[in-house]
């Protein structure tokens, strides 16, 4: 079985959508839950464990969505900016290396 990957949902508000459009990355958004735009950054087990350790408010939603939730807004903004910078959602190793 493939290793499970755990999404971090970067919900795209207008401000984030503007940034994506400017970077020509608006296509990167997926639609979830009746039309909400989201960019999903996926963590493997090791990355998930590190995130939960470094950011104590974060929670892994085991029961329902199996996603990493409740990261502080500024952390999610930083992850989002990294995605824009690298033009790719595969940025977690890079992002976590600072912690």
């Amino acid at each position: 079985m493939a290793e499970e990957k755990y999404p971090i949902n970067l919900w795209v508000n207008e401000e984030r959508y503007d940034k994506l459009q400017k970077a020509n990355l608006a296509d990167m958004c997926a639609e979830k839950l009746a039309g909400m735009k989201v960019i999903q950054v996926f963590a493997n087990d090791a990355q998930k464990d590190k995130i939960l350790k470094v950011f104590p408010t974060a929670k892994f939603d085991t029961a329902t969505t199996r996603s990493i939730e409740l990261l502080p807004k500024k952390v999610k903004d930083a992850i989002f900016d990294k995605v824009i910078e690298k033009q790719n959602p595969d940025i977690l190793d890079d992002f976590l290396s600072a912690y």
Partner: protein
Amino acid sequence: MAEIGHGGKEIVERILEPAEAAEKIKGLKAIPIRSQIANEVIDISYGWFTPLQGFMNKADADGVCRSTQLADGTVWSIPIIFDMTEAQISDYGIKEGDTVLLTYMDNPMAIFEIEDIWSYDMEDMCQCIFGTADQKHPGVLRTCGYKEKFLGGKITLVNRPKINPPYDAYFIPPLEMRKKFKEKGWQASVVHQTRNVPHTGHEWLMKGAWAQAYGGLPIEKPIVGVLVNAIIGAKRKGDYIDEAIILCQDELRKSGYFADYNHMTSLTFWDMRYAGPKEAIFHACIRVNLGLTHHMYGRDHAGVGDYYDPYDAHRLLQSIPKEKLNITPVYSMNWLYCPHCGEITNEGLCGHKKEWQKFSGTLIRSIVMDGVKPPRLIFRPEVFDLVMECAEKYGFGSPFVTDKYLENRTPVFSIEPLSA
């Protein structure tokens, strides 16, 4: 006519009027209590905890631990106990047979007639109630933090709490609640236990339970209602603030997602123990006293972490006969969003399993934290706007509990000087 509560016992408010109270407390030793105990004093005095008339003596607490019942055989699943250190007992010079005055916020609150002073193996108690003695379990942590001695005996309120806005409209004790149900003509009523701001998954849980509670009753006029009973007590950082919970639950009715004739919001003071199945039984007991006929249970009711199987609570409830616990459990399957159906649907109904998009309270909190307004199918716009208003008005800018909120919030209730 007597109102009969849990265990077939009459619900009696144990409350003195001010003049009598002032007389009765004269000369009594004053003992300050913490918020958990103050909450439970209210629950005892107004009848939420019927048939309990006070804090448990050893025989009752031991019965609860050993066999989920009081000494007289009434089903009960969580010890309601008053703790004190040995040193405090000796400093106050307290002995069995004494009557003392419990104070809160430096004002008189209740008379405590001490019948029994006892101790217990707390690790054993935790194993019995929580199924674990792991200190990472928040209920275990609380229980093992109790002082080493317990005082059992009757409680009588001498000073009614002043419930502060915006909670005041939602403080509806058992006898008053039963009157309201009669006024509304509800022949069946189902309770939704919550500590959450509602998303549409919760809304549909309630709507589904309403239909289940309707069962075979006639439909010519509305005779079934949903009672939201929010648990108000100790908060953890990151929870929704209490003001947002209670007001947003009521907003579903005010904005017409429910109606006056089928929905009501209220609160119960209680510090959650997260005891999973045992807490599920306990919730049923207090809702019997509130006059409800049905109780909603989703998966992992009152659980925490992965200490309990999601359906442990259902199995324990099913093992207790109706004559011992007079409320009908309504088990709820999860509601979710199906993009194919284009609506909120139920995992027991929709066949597009591969397309399902599940959502949880946690996910919605994350969306709100990202500054995104979810679509109305997922989160009602009136509720969203009210959450944001509550953040400004009560939450110091945040709809979630912060250190600042914990330090500066307006207390849910106050005990004021006794005015005789």
